């Protein structure tokens, strides 16, 4: 018998929770970014796990899509972070509040 699905899901949920808490707690934009990646990969793990359970390739294909999108998002996000750093000499997201109402 292969590894039960629950193992993967617990791991995935734990990773997602760690990622969420990190996004909410951290102030450094780069670190927030890394936690976001953690969340994405937690979801990918769940997708692949379900894909194996159902013996269908759909979940894995979706995971690939997710990775590609994540890669593109990293490019854009890092670009923004660099631009923000150039302007404010800081990557602390709490200091970026020009749109405060």
């Amino acid at each position, binding site marked *: 018998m292969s590894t039960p699905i629950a193992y993967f899901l617990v791991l995935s949920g734990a990773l997602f929770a760690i990622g969420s808490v990190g996004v909410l707690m951290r102030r450094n934009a780069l670190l927030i970014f890394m936690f976001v990646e953690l969340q994405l990969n937690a979801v990918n793990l769940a997708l692949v796990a379900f894909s194996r359970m159902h013996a269908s390739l759909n979940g894995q294909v979706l995971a690939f899509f997710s990775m590609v999108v994540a890669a593109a998002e990293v490019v854009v996000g890092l670009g923004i972070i660099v631009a923000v750093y150039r302007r404010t000499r800081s990557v602390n997201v709490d200091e970026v509040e020009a*749109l*405060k*109402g």
Partner: protein
Amino acid sequence: MNSSLRLLWLIPVLPLAGAAVNLLAGKRLGRSAGFFATVLVAVAFAISLIVVGGLLDLAAPDRLYIRQLFEWIHVGTFSVGATLRLDPLSATMILVVTGIGSLIHLYAIGYMRDDPRYGRFFAYLNLFVFFMLMLVLGQNLLVLYLGWEGVGLCSYLLIGFWFEKTENANAAKKAFVTTRIGDTAMLIGLALIVVKFGTLDYTVIFGSAGSTLTKGAATAIALLLFAGAIGKSAQVPLHVWLPDAMAGPTPVSALIHAATMVTAGVYLVLRMHVIFEISGVALVVVATVGVVTMLFAGICAFGQDDIKRVLAYSTISQLGYMFIAAGLRAYSIALFLLVAHAFYKALMFLGAGSVMHGMHDHTDMKQMGGLLKRMPVTGVTFVIGALALAGLFPLAGFFAKDEILEVANSTGHAWLFVLAMVGALISALYMGRLVFLTFFGRPRSEEAERAHESSPVMTIPLVVLAIGAATAGLLNLTLHGALSTFVEPVVGPVPEGSAGIAYAALVAISSSMVAVGVVTTWFLYGSGKIDWLALRVRMQPSQRVLENGFYIDNYYSALLVTPGKALAAFLAYVFDVRVIDAAVNGIGASVRALARSGRKLQTGLVRTYALAFLAGAIALLVFVGFRL
């Protein structure tokens, strides 16, 4: 179909072309603008003669020519054509409009000679002739209404032609607004007709009115249409605009405010007489309004010092006479008086204009006198016109007035007969006063002393009109005269009865009324035996009442105009500011207040937003989870 009838469309188009050319290029045409305009109307008159000749060639029951120029409005099943109708009634009207119109155009060449807006004057005059022709030639009520409002517009433009003077501009405004009251009622009447008949076409309306309309509906429509006629024909209680309309140039007073436009109301009643007859009550109203107006305006005319205002009140009074005839179902006699009146009233207005020219624009009769010797042509023609109006045998007014009296007499309308007789006396009185004060006695001012005759271009129309005023009676020597027979297919025969006094006695009484009127005024104003100026001072209060038309204007301004202005001021300065503006500003202010509290949500803290994402995602999950 007779080929000469095909020329009909040219009759209204020619004056329209003249108006367009004079309006666009009047300045460049210079002096020839007036000549050009006059020729066009004269040609229209010639074509009218040809067309009416063609109509006369047909047998009496077939005298009807309808020509659709184009489809004007088409909505669903409702359709209105720009359609012309030539029948004996409209034929008579176009002859009057173009005939008298061309004479007045000719006169205006002389009268307006030194006016800086010469071309524009003739453009308006031509435009008026066009609209008046559309009014009488229309085959449906919408074309009539187009003409109706068009002549109202021209009247406004021409009364206020010398708009530099505030009172002229005000008179124009007053005329426009007052007639608008009647026009609004008339428009409602038209709408009622559309509701009842589904069309405005005369043929359909006349053909099916008897079966379609109940008595009540016919009364409603007839009275609404008559309200329009009251406004346009200056009948009590909407008569107040016409005396003030004399502010316009005198040819305008002659053409629009005496000979043609003001008779449009009479034409409307004649044209729609089918509906008035179904109602019955409406005819009583028509006759009543007519008789009240005739007496009221006649009395007012007696107290006027301004020569043009006398004529204006006299016009109102004569229009009242026409409505009496219409109310008695003697439609062809009303038309006869309309034609005769067009001659002698146009003549007298033009004569008054000639007097004003001689007197350096003075219109006060107190300063005139003895003008007959100094202005012989004007004087003689004017006296002919005045006697024609007063109804002296054998001038035009005699036949028209006596035929109306005879109808009232023989059909047993004793009260109308007596009052109309009194009206005849009054008209002889005010005409006598006007003539004796103006043309007889000694000159009472420098200007009257040095007055001179006007140029031939002005006196020739006077002579032609005087011949017309003297001989127009030939049109209808009896109740079954030529004109009555001609229009009988359209308006039916003149009603006759055997009640009342003998015709000879009637003629004797009415002629003695004229004689009494003339002799009385001669004694008062012409004999020199009475110091009428002293008498006038003694009668000051009552003279004032007459001169101001029983202060109707003051009542209107106290009852309607002042409250109206107060309401307008309230709406403009209180309601608009406090309610309309407040509502608009209030909406703006509340949106801003909402935005002020709403913007607090935007903290600018990225992690707050992230938390909101998460909360949203969890909420969504919970929602989906519970749904499953």
